[in-house]
């Protein structure tokens, strides 16, 4: 935690919350990545072992978890691109707030595309 006794210059609003969301989404993705490499490694054990474990990904609970995971990945990716622009584009810092809302809009559009398709895959319409 920041230990500043007084306020800090950058506290609050889109700049701080995008940073917080970037950390949390990154941490979640990293933990999933460790598990995901382990479950994929089961292809070296046997087709049955892999199919058994990967079958869990097709259940409702995991299916909903995948929506959260894809949401976290998309946010982290889009906000990461914003971060690169903030760092390397000469006008980046001036437009960081606008770019944050751009990230939110693109995220909503991509999720609106993914969500129905994933639900159809899961529940087989």
């Amino acid at each position: 935690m920041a230990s500043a006794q007084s306020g800090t210059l950058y506290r609050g609003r889109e700049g701080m919350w995008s940073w917080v969301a970037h950390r949390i989404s990154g941490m979640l993705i990293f933990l999933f990545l460790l598990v995901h490499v382990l479950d994929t490694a089961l292809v070296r054990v046997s087709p049955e072992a892999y199919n058994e474990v990967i079958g869990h990904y097709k259940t409702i609970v995991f299916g909903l978890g995948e929506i959260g995971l894809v949401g976290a990945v998309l946010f982290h990716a889009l906000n990461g691109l914003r971060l690169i622009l903030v760092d390397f584009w000469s006008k980046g810092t001036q437009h960081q707030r606008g770019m944050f809302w751009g990230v939110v809009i693109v995220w909503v559009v991509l999720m609106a595309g993914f969500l129905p398709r994933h639900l159809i895959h899961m529940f087989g319409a």
Partner: protein
Amino acid sequence: MSTPITSIPDPSTRYRRTGLRGPNMEMLSWMFMRASGLLLVILIFGHLFVNLWLGEGVKGIDFGFVAGKWANPFWQVWDLLMLWLGLIHGGNGVRTIINDYARSNRLRLVLKGLLYFAVVVTIVLGTLVIFTFDPCPVGADPSLLPSLCEG
């Protein structure tokens, strides 16, 4: 009476947060996060598109699906890059988080030790799996294998 000598830096002098100058590990790590991040956006969007969007999505993933992909060197290289870049990028991110929040030296050391162990083991395991994978294991149930194993 002598005039006191005061030294005021030139206003155009850039201030330095640290004494570090030129390329150093923290700067390389900062650069790596941006470069690998850009590549990972492409790699992971492609991965999600092929595995979760095309065909039957998550319902279509089984041994045959993975074996069909890894029979192609293109997807082997794709997944290998994703594995290495993803784990180093993620590991470096978690290293930053540990440095920020773990305040005792010992806790930082323990957490980073566990982190590096997990990253190295996962990278080595994943790399071995990609390179030693056999899409048509001897004695396996033929109905679980990809079509390329027939004949």
